[in-house]
């Protein structure tokens, strides 16, 4: 197979684009997709300080790598979830990456902030581990951004993540989630940082290939709690659709963003206020994070 641009031997075929690329031209393609994402949704100003949420996995480290290369001022944020060896190893990957590139990394521990690590939160709440984990991450990303005066948080969500989330929301007709799903969420309150997903145009195979070609040392092993997660089941379903019809995932997600989302957004306006306990933004009186921390404290 030959590279579409230069005719040299290709290293990666992208069926949904009906193309194959050599390593240097693939990196160009990848960076162009990130630039297009940032431009289309006006995600970042050129001189803006960006908080990059990193897990040690391929997506977030690839994102950090691209944003540094593109000239953004970045600070990494690693949230230690307390998930045994997985957390120890993934933290080390982030620290090595930050040290090699000379960029700052902030580390926060869920065990310290919530009162218990993710495995204990799972037992206390009797809900899937990803539930308390996701809630804690979203809360802490926003709070750390505010504490450091950073207006925008970038996460490594890719096309497959976004398509799987969309699939899950549609399966249950979670219209509030459909209203919120976007590659770029604006700040709707003085205490809310903007959230952007500059990799939403790239599949997880493309982010893995980018990380490999760029020799980024990322954690290949998956979070032990991801096994059996419904998001994985959704991804598997979508992958079979993609195999039968290349571009299916892309069309599913992009069609929603371009044609579907606005209708849900109009129908789902919510009033935001500040949590009476911690002062962070919530739709209720006490925010979900404080309720979670209470639940953990009561169980001790």
């Amino acid at each position: 197979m030959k590279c579409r641009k230069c005719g040299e031997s290709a290293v990666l075929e992208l069926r949904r684009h009906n193309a194959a690329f050599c390593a240097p031209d693939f990196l160009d393609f990848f960076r162009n997709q990130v630039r297009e994402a940032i431009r289309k949704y006006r995600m970042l100003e050129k001189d803006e300080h960006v908080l990059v949420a990193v897990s040690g996995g391929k997506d977030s480290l690839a994102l950090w790598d691209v944003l540094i290369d593109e000239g953004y001022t970045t600070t990494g944020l690693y949230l230690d979830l307390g998930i045994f060896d997985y957390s120890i190893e993934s933290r080390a990957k982030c620290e090595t990456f930050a040290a090699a590139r000379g960029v700052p990394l902030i580390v926060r521990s869920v065990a310290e902030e919530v009162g218990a690590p993710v495995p204990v939160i799972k037992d206390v709440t009797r809900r899937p581990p990803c539930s308390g984990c996701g809630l804690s991450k979203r809360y802490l990303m926003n709070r750390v951004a505010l504490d450091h005066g950073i207006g925008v948080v970038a996460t490594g969500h890719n096309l497959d993540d976004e398509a799987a989330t969309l699939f899950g929301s549609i399966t249950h007709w979670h219209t509030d989630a459909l209203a919120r799903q976007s590659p770029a969420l604006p700040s709707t309150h003085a205490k809310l940082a903007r959230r952007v997903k500059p990799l939403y145009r790239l599949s997880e195979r493309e982010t893995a290939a980018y990380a490999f070609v760029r020799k980024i040392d990322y954690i290949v092993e998956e979070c032990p709690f991801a096994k059996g997660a419904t998001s994985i089941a959704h991804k598997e379903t979508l992958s079979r659709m993609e195999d039968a019809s290349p571009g299916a995932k892309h069309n599913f997600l992009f069609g929603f963003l371009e044609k579907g989302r606005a209708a849900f957004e109009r129908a789902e306006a919510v009033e935001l206020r500040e949590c009476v306990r911690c002062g962070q933004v919530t739709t209720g009186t006490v925010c979900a994070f404080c309720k979670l921390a209470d639940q953990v404290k009561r169980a001790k």
Partner: protein
Amino acid sequence: VAGGRRVKDVLRELDILPETVLVIRGDELITADQVVRDADTIELRPVMSGGAS
């Protein structure tokens, strides 16, 4: 698995969708039309990551 075949045939025998893995030989990625020989070692690295609330 036996070599002397294209990557895509190896993946089919293992029932792996090509979109779900990187195929690595040595320190390079290879495409599904490449032939792997019996003496080759290839790594099939899953690309799916998960977990979401």
